[in-house]
């Protein structure tokens, strides 16, 4: 039985294929179109899933599972009183659009099952957790009405027992403060989390009066402080007054006050999350907790829930945000159609995207006249050559196997480097990732060596929790200002070549970990194809690219190519979107850019 799970039309459209209960493929549309967070119909992702399933045709698909209920969402949107300033065309009124797009753009003709937004989140965590039974907590901005749900799973059954409803939302609270701090909503929340350790929680008291805990897992936002129905700004002047913090302009200077606010927000979020897990434990006592929803991307809070909450073991869906809901919806459809749980074991890895074989890459390199070093059939030598370069403090683009699903690069499309180099963090931030300098990088560490260096004694393969660094080594590139890190433990079972690479680095240097960050530059989706990787290298200061069995050192990339890529990038940035002069209206239809190309900073919660 072939089931396609879809989450789409809001943020980062994604498709996955569950075949006979096994998750066999999945990818977000952005990786194919190269439009970050592309929310258009996932045409390429759908086709990829069909190809990965063995050249399937749409007629081979038994069901499409859609991740939310447009009708219930409309109820909530109507209750918000969204006006024309949010969307003059009222496009959100059209609840028939998702089905229509699935039919007309994906070409799918069979049955479509839809599930509720938080049900999909919950399923994305529980059914892939490997727990036979577990309590399930989902926390995000908002789906239909729910912003938080409390549930319990057992075998094939998954029940939601209670919920917190819009507008009271931890996700929206976090996004509103992200907005106030001058970062992009629905994308830069993790930057606020990264900023928090630099601050003092001096606004926590005020925030506790704005986001007040209530009985039975509830909490309330003081709605004088927020307006989720206005375009472009989530908070009101009241919030600014209450906090006494002026909104920071995007890309404006980062001051101590911003760090203090970030820290306060993080503290209050953690408190509320802990309270919620305790309430959930009353409803669903268990050793196991599953977490999903955008707020579960907050790996600092996850750690606190894990160490201080009532549950012994937790599983966080690696693609915790809406992208991963495609996985949940597909699992729910499988249960509905077969009565059986989709998979028994824990999801071993998220390498569900496309891969590219070395011979095909060789042909491309030949046409591009790039004289790469060819290590086909000689993996040990390849890894030694990579370690040579890491040890010389080079930054490596590492491209191997199937692309990861979810926001983290986990050794398939990663940038890696030596964590011991004190200058590495700044170099990576400024020259390669082209991003703010305050954030550290994550380590990928050999699982068996992890306890000797970090405060974690169980596998954490998806970078979903932080922990303290306890290493005898000095690891400035991966250690945050508060001594924490966000590790990926690397196991030879689930990431064999990546594990052998780190093992080789360990054998050479005595350091069993590398810096691991996603293979992209700021504003760009993670690379997908070998060509994306070459382009990314040409457009950054990456010293060396490992494309499967090939090593391409920077000098092999011609000046022409670097110029071409840079010019292409500039053209993209400078693209001016056509606007219509009101003098012409009446006889002019409003020209709208393609949906995926909406300018940054314009967002609505519709």
């Amino acid at each position: 039985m072939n089931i396609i799970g879809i989450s789409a039309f809001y943020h980062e459209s994604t498709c996955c294929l569950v075949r006979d209960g096994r998750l066999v493929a999945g990818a977000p549309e952005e990786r194919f179109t190269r439009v970050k967070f592309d929310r258009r119909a996932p045409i390429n992702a759908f086709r990829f899933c069909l190809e990965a399933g063995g050249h399937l045709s749409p007629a081979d698909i038994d069901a499409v599972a859609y991740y939310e209920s447009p009708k219930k969402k409309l109820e909530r949107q109507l209750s918000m009183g969204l006006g024309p300033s949010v969307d003059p065309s009222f496009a959100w009124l059209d609840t028939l659009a998702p089905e229509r797009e699935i039919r007309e753009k994906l070409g799918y003709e069979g049955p479509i099952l839809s599930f509720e937004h938080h049900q999909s989140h919950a399923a994305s965590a529980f059914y892939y957790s490997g727990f036979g039974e577990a309590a399930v907590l989902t926390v995000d901005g908002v789906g239909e009405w729910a912003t938080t749900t409390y549930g319990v799973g057992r075998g094939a059954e998954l029940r939601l027992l209670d919920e917190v409803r819009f507008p009271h939302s931890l996700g929206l609270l976090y996004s509103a403060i992200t907005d106030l701090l001058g970062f992009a909503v629905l994308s830069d929340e993790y930057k606020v989390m990264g900023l928090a350790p630099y601050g003092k929680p001096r606004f926590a008291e005020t925030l506790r009066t704005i986001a007040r805990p209530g009985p039975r897992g509830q909490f309330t936002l003081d709605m004088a402080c927020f307006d989720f129905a206005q375009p472009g700004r989530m908070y009101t002047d009241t919030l600014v007054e209450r906090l006494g913090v002026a909104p920071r302009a995007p890309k404006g200077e980062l001051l101590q006050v911003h760090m203090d606010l970030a820290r306060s927000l993080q503290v209050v979020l953690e408190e509320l999350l802990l309270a919620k897990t305790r309430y959930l434990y009353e409803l669903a006592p268990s050793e196991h907790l599953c977490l999903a929803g955008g707020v579960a991307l907050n790996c600092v809070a996850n750690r606190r829930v894990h160490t201080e909450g009532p549950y012994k073991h937790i599983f966080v869906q690696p693609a915790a945000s809406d992208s991963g809901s495609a996985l949940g919806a597909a699992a729910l459809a499988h249960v509905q159609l077969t009565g059986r749980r989709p998979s028994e074991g824990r999801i071993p890895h998220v390498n569900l995207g496309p891969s590219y074989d070395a011979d095909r890459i060789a042909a491309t390199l030949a046409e591009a006249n790039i004289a790469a070093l060819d290590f086909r059939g000689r993996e040990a030598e390849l890894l030694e050559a990579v370690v040579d370069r890491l040890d010389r403090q080079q930054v490596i683009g590492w491209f191997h196997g199937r692309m990861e699903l979810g926001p983290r690069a986990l050794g398939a499309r990663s940038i890696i480097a030596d964590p011991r180099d004190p200058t590495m963090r700044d170099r990576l931030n400024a020259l390669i990732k082209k991003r703010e300098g305050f954030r550290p990088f994550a380590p990928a560490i050999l699982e068996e060596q992890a306890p000797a260096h970090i405060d974690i004694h169980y596998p954490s393969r998806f970078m979903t929790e932080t922990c303290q660094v306890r290493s005898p080594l000095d690891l400035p590139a991966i250690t945050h200002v508060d001594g924490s890190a966000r590790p990926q433990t690397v196991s030879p079972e689930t990431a064999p070549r990546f594990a052998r690479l780190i093992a080789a680095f360990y054998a050479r240097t005595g350091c069993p970990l590398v810096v691991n960050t996603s293979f992209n530059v700021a504003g760009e989706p993670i690379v997908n194809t070998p060509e994306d990787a070459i382009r990314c290298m040409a457009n950054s200061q990456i010293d060396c690219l490992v494309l499967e069995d090939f090593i391409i050192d920077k000098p092999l990339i011609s000046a022409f190519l670097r110029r071409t890529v840079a010019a292409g990038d500039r053209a993209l940035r400078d693209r001016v979107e056509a606007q219509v002069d009101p003098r012409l209206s009446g006889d002019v239809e409003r020209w709208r850019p393609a949906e995926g190309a909406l300018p940054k900073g314009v967002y609505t919660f519709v």
Partner: protein
Amino acid sequence: MNTKELAEFLASEEGLAVARALLGATAEPAGAPVAARPGPQPILEWRPVEGEDGLTFERPDAARCKPRRIGPKAPGALRVCLIGESMAAGFPLAPAYTPALVLEELLRQALGPAVEVIDLAMPNMGPTEQLRVCEAARQLRPDVFVLMTGNNWYYGLTIEPTASPEARRRYALRLAEGGPRSLVAEHRRQLLARAAVMVKHLVAAAHDVGARAVLTIPAVNHAWERRSPPPWLGGGGAAAWSRGYEAARRALAAGALEEAVHAAAQVEDTPLTGAPQRVRARALLASGDPAAAAEAAMAALDGTNWQNITFALPQTPAAVAALMRDGAEAGGYEAVELREILAEAIGGPYLDGRVFYDHCHLNVEGVRVAMSAVAAQIASPRLPEPLGWRALHPLAPSPTPLVAASASFQAAHWASQFFPALAQDDLGALLRAQVREALDADDALQPVLRAFIRLRSPLTSPGLHAALPQASRVPGVSAALVSRRLNAPLLGAILDVLRERGDAEVEDDLTALVQGYERALDDGIDLAHPRHQPQLWERTPLAWDDPNDRQGAPFYRALWPDSTFSLVCGASRDLSVALTARAPSPGEVTLLVNGAPVGALALGPGWRTWRGVLPQGTLRRGLNEVRLLWPALAVDEDEALRLAQRRLSLGVDADLLPVFGEVYSLRVTAQAGA
């Protein structure tokens, strides 16, 4: 009704239709004009700089033409601002050779050195930007505004899929009123209203600073052919249209010119697609009546230039040209009718490749003639005797051979994408002529053409390919080279022309290309991917993104009874093929390779897959044509129209064109039984 009940209601088609109608009734009126920001304004890429010598303008680099700074106007000097679209910007000759440079040179010849022509033309400039530029240009205190615009005024007007839901609802009302013909009428009404507004505001900006406004009325290439299928017409009208059109085409092909003229006139087409008028124009031209042919060509253009039935090209319909011409006296502007002057120059009314590269862009001779006329118009009042364009024409400069060669090649690339010709032969002949013209102008184009062949590789995007850097040194050719499309028509023309010139090396390039394809065929190639479709714009109207990728063309939709795909291979082995397709009416689709039938698939409304073999014997080394012949349409036109109208009334885009069949994938692979 509570929100839950309301949501329940709105989530139905009825509910959404009611909501759209209510929103339409309460739609806010047009907003007030945008107040200009105080202080100096930028003009296109020119940034204002306030310095010791007053307000000057600078731009970051000299990408488009030479000057980097516009200083204060010299006392006694004549300053001309040239504002316009791609035609005025000199595409595809720019930046080395532009109408502005030619105009400046001619005015200097006529009036002396104290003349300055500032080039404010830009390709793809829409009406809003034109107004903005014109108003900002007042800061330069020009003496004359030359307004070479009009071709792009349809931007944002039409019923394209990005139109707002409210616009679509209004189209539904028109459709209900009088069928597709009333949509054409609605478009015409909007375009004329838009043109009146544009002329008024552009001229007012010139008058505001006491400058003369010289408006050129764009001419169109009468020989530029397009064919458009008919929309659903109801009452069997589309079927009747198709029969009549086919009869006219057959007569033309058989050389029965009178019969073709007659048959084309019989097709109930006005105003609709213009395609029968195209047949008429060709027949009239062949029978030696260029004036009537030119008129028929204009009628074709007036019928075609609206969206969702065909792709509207930047061209000025006759009614807009008339509005520009007739308003001159009352509007206080001077009009230069390019159509008349170009006709004088070539000695006949039927404008064609002698003065145009493509649908609207003037070639070197076209630019020389047009700018002679503009220069004469500007100079005459300042001279004791008025000047005619013929007096200035011999003085008009020409571009270097390399620039001319590059422009011809770019024109061929453009034509290969935007020339849905009546027959493939015509496109091939046009492309071969343009490629020859490029090589004749400067043989430096030869390596560019060879690179074009290698850059069609399916393995490597042209941006990474080693053949790009050297070839892209020729100015202007990059866009054609870096396209990811196979572009079989242009590829075929280049192979033909290089071979006919005895270029032995071209076989090496073809071999490299074939090797790339053979490697890709090991994994499989989907011929229905937009990249392998020979004609870019024969695609779904239901999406409006880059038609080179799947977002722009989710799957292939056949708007004509046959479809062509291109395959490059070595013809050294059998290839497996898997076709997944569907059709609205039951019947068989036949698959042909290079004209030889290789299989048929019984089709119905759901996707079905046929697997078969393309036998080695049917294949050729190099370019192959894979064709699908669709079953005849048996669809109730009235029902189809009702459906389209229903969708539009919901604010949803609708397909007004009959679709003979759809291809989800057409996968060819070297593996057996794939």
